[in-house]
């Protein structure tokens, strides 16, 4: 019960760190926040998650890098980024001028590359590391780590050993058994799991009779994929003990709530930012109103509340 006059409590604890609220951008859809400053107040977000950064600059793939699909989109950016040094010089100081948590998304083609980035970030004022072992748009590394149990374990273990900050491992949905991959990462010391990255997809241009994307394949994101993402979060919630960040098609506060009920401690908003740069504000306000109307004191009460009670009490 909310005491009269009190605002509902949106704070959540993620791997021991308190966030103002469970809403943050998904990596690669928000730059480092600068471009969104005109549209929203970064200090209102639970956290800012940066675009993927590697040890050296990456140029990414050729254009076209985007194709719209029914209720979703494909991208094949290929983790274009200016490298960790540039990132530390330009983006961290900018983010520090805002009262928000920082999660740095880390890209790599080999364990050594991931480890180098993490080491450099060791003494930086960042709150979380998000290890992207699930990008479908690069040939080596990337998704290979996220689809092989042993590799997922190895990369998590080595990166965790090098990391100062809590380590969230970001998983690919393009696997037969998401629970097994998550458990491997948990066993290797991950402090949390975020999922899903994009589903591998493609589109044909019937005029040219060729794939629309220069890269042929791309990552499918947006509301179209939400049911798959939600299912994976729900599956993991029963199987792992570390917290889950839900991602995939979240565009409204109702979507965010579905993920929280399924077991997510926090949520990331990706593609929806492209349609409405203020959408995260609307989601935060929507959750706040919901708690008020339902007379729920803290959003943490809802985490995982959507699991059938029969599972707690199997008979």
């Amino acid at each position, binding site marked *: 019960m909310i005491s009269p006059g009190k605002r509902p409590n949106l704070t959540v604890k993620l791997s021991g760190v308190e966030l103002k609220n469970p809403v943050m951008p998904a990596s*690669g*859809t*928000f*730059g480092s926040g600068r*471009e*969104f400053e*005109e*549209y*929203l*107040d970064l200090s209102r977000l639970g956290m800012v998650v940066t*675009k993927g950064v590697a040890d050296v600059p990456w*140029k*990414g793939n050729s*254009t*076209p*890098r*985007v*194709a*719209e699909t*029914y*209720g*979703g*989109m494909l*991208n094949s*950016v290929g983790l*274009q980024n200016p490298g960790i040094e540039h990132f530390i010089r330009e983006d961290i100081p900018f983010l520090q001028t805002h009262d928000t948590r920082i999660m740095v998304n880390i890209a790599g083609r080999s364990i050594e590359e991931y480890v180098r980035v993490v080491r450099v970030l060791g003494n930086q004022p960042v709150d979380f590391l998000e290890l992207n072992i699930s990008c479908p748009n690069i040939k080596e590394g990337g998704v290979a780590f996220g689809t092989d149990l042993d590799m997922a374990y190895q990369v998590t273990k080595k990166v965790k050993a090098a990391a100062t900050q809590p380590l969230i491992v970001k998983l690919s949905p393009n696997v037969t058994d998401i629970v097994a991959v998550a458990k491997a990462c948990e066993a290797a010391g991950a402090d949390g799991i975020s999922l899903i990255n994009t589903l591998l997809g493609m589109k044909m241009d019937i005029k040219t009779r060729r794939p629309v994307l220069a890269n042929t394949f791309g990552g499918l994101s*947006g*509301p179209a994929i939400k049911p798959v993402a939600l299912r994976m979060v729900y599956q993991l919630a029963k199987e792992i003990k570390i917290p889950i960040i839900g991602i995939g098609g979240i565009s409204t506060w109702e979507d965010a709530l579905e993920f929280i009920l399924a077991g997510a401690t926090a949520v990331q908003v990706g*593609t929806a*930012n*492209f*349609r*409405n*740069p*203020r959408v995260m504000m609307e989601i935060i306000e929507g959750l706040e109103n919901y708690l008020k109307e339902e007379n729920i004191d803290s959003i943490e009460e809802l985490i995982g509340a959507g699991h059938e009670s029969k599972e707690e009490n199997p008979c």
Partner: protein
Amino acid sequence: MEKKNIEKARILKNQALTPEIYEMVVDVGKTLDAVPGQFLNLYCKDGSRLLPRPISICEVDEKMGTFRLIYKVLGKGTEEFTTLKENEKIEYLGPLGTGFTLEESDNKEILIIGGGVGVPPLLELSKRLKGKKRVLLGFEKESILTGDFKKVAREVTVATTTGTEGIKGTVMDLLEEGEYVPDRIYSCGPKGMLKAVQAWARERNIPMELSLEERMACGIGACLVCTCKIKEGPHIEDWNYQRVCKDGPVFNGEEVVFE
């Protein structure tokens, strides 16, 4: 600082200029700032189409708060736009992007070269530029906006590939045939055309601004899907990706690297 947001504009006019090309005039209900070469992101109402459609500003009345937009019906989104009626609302974000640089000199020779749906943004540009303006326009079959250009430019020449209007050929034919020695070139149109314009201008050492087109998602510089290659040093390998939506769509033509 007040935050920007998606806004609603009221449609004053939405009609076909040719079977494929429509003119839409919208009222945003407030004064505004816009630079020629900038664009608006227009939203589809149908939720199956998530991404906004970038459409260049063809003309703007900053005090009245109206935009004139010219769009070609290409796919489902622009098809949806054709169904909008007077007084209906359309949602948009913008103006977005970096537009043309407006030189302040009156006696410069200016050459403005447009192709297809690259023509519209050059109209507001032509209105605002000082100098002696010559305009070359290329179309497939039917021209658009030539009357409007004639009001603001010294000379307007048209080419169509079918020969229906003006000379039969492309703007490059116009460019090769006329004996132009401009001080500055502004151009917008298909990639092939821009590449040819660039080569022509480079040969003659004429500064130019080119407005590029690339498929977009966010339109505000965050997603990196709309990149183009921009020279960043003396060597041919010295290029970096820049964002058409934020760093452009207008670039210093000298620096654009075409494949």
